[in-house]
């Protein structure tokens, strides 16, 4: 089933970490397997934030030897960053298997990201000038607490509670997805894509890589491909309705935009609240109500509806 949620503030910052946690926790019943966030802050002029996973959560049960391997992986990542002349300004080991870097880098970040991911067991969850992508097993409350998300200040964000149906219960299959190696593009999705393999092979022929077998990752790659080729986000969302088969509602974020698209059948829910200074959306109204206890006007977007909002 899965639950998705998003919020965007127009022209101002707010505690989007706490807001997203509140909404996602209310959607726990739609997907208790894992929870993920893509939140957009402002790390500083010219700085990149990189979120890295160096093991799956379940790997930590493999015994003492895993800790030695994790240290080796961190050393390898640090060495690669140094070889690309990236200046590490902040390095946090948020979880035993998850790190957060704040970097200064003037080179080709895509090349650097590809190099880092050559390290066995290492996956970059996100890399960008605003995006911070966090995902882990458990509900929103536990993930937010573990990663210190409840104090995250930013402009917008999207999130996902996952009920695993077509791939494993692990972090790499959790949402959101970052569109490697494109800065700041993230996607959450509720539904099933039925021409996944056809579209995936088409994207792979165009040089894109996939980290999982989850159909939702396709939407991230598809969107990033369009954006990299000069297609505007709204146009990419419209094209997806014609080109991607299945039932889906998905949300996409860039550095300063949040967009949504709903398939031709409108089979997957989304409730939308729009005011002058913010837009909130979720699979169920009960999630939006956690941040707006007072009476508000909401509506369901229709089939084939596409919307894009600017932060």
């Amino acid at each position: 089933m899965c639950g998705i949620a998003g919020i965007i503030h127009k022209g101002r910052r707010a505690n989007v970490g706490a807001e997203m946690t509140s909404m996602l926790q209310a959607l726990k019943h739609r997907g208790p397997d894992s929870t993920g966030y893509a939140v957009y802050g402002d790390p500083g002029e010219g700085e990149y934030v990189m979120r890295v996973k160096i093991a799956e959560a379940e790997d930590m049960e493999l015994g003492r030897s895993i800790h030695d391997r994790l240290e080796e992986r961190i050393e390898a990542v640090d060495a690669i960053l140094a070889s690309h002349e990236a200046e590490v300004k902040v390095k946090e080991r948020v979880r035993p298997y998850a790190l957060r870097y704040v970097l200064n880098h003037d080179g080709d970040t895509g090349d650097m990201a590809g190099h880092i991911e050559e390290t066995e067991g290492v996956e970059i969850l996100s890399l960008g000038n605003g995006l911070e992508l966090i995902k882990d097993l458990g509900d929103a409350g536990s993930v937010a607490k573990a990663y210190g998300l409840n104090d995250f200040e930013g402009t917008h964000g999207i999130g996902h509670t996952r009920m695993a149906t077509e791939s494993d219960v692990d972090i790499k299959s959790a949402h959101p997805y970052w569109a490697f190696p494109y800065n700041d593009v993230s996607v959450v999705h509720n539904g099933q894509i039925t021409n996944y393999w056809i579209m995936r092979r088409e994207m792979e022929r165009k040089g894109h890589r996939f980290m999982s077998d989850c159909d939702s990752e396709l939407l991230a790659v598809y969107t990033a491909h369009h954006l990299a080729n000069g297609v505007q986000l709204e146009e990419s969302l419209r094209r997806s309705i014609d080109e991607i088969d299945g039932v889906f509602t998905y949300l996409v974020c860039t550095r300063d935009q949040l967009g949504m698209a709903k398939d031709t059948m409108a089979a997957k829910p989304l409730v939308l609240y729009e005011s002058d200074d913010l837009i909130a959306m979720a699979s169920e109204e009960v999630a939006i109500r956690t941040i707006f206890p007072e009476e508000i006007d909401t509506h369901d977007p229709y089939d084939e509806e596409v919307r894009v909002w600017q932060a």
Partner: protein
Amino acid sequence: MSGISDAELRDMTQEERVNALGMTTEQLTGKSLYIEFDPDAQERFTYPWAPDVDFNKRTEFDAGDLTNTEVNARIRDLMAEGYGTIVLQNPRGKHSLAVGILSRLNLIIEGSTGYFGVGLIDGPNVRINGRVGWSCAENMMSGTVVVEKNAGSTFGAAIRGGDLVCRGSVGSRTGIDMKGGTIIVGGDTGALSGFMMQRGRMVVCGNAGKNLGDSMYDGTIYVGGEIRSLGVDAVTAYLTKLDKDWLTRKLTQYGLMPGRGVDHFTKIVAGKQLWNYDNLEPNEKKLIL
């Protein structure tokens, strides 16, 4: 129809043709307007365990800190105490509120509800001063439900009787599989509304999305605005005086009567050309082939 030749029919206006063919004698209680209970019988109908409520005995409670199960239990307890008018405050989008009420009750919900609100009801009059999520009043059997704002998808799925009204717009698949009763939408409705509709009437004052009335078996849909496309086997039909009278009465009843009347409504019915209307047995088809 006897005594009228095809040539005469061809020369008639559409209205004259409809009258000559007897279409204005349509019975409003016929199969296409099947109602689960006879209107007279409905007044007397009650479940043996239905509480004896007094509409003049009124109470209200705050649902803000209650679970949906606790809210529904509270409603039942209050009905058992004889309260016939209950006001539910702060529903906060909770799911499955006020479901399975099988007796007379005047229920006012001050706010918005989540999915599956007021489902499986048989008898109460409900007013929701807010929005409702997906599948509002699913399988409703009798009573009235009036939603003051918008509604989500599958509004009135499989309803069998009663009046279900949304003053705002509704999502997709409105009245999917409806088997009776009336659905009225003040605004627009989404795609596949009336999908596999079997009986009853649906009125959409605004626009309708694509595939309206797809695979409908029977029943009638009226649309006041534009129809993006008709579904498989859904066809337009002549809007008779009976249709207009019925629309006028129903829309006036709920304060949704358009200023320009109802003459502009488009009537949609089943074309009945799908395979399931084919009354040939397989061995008979072989003979034809």
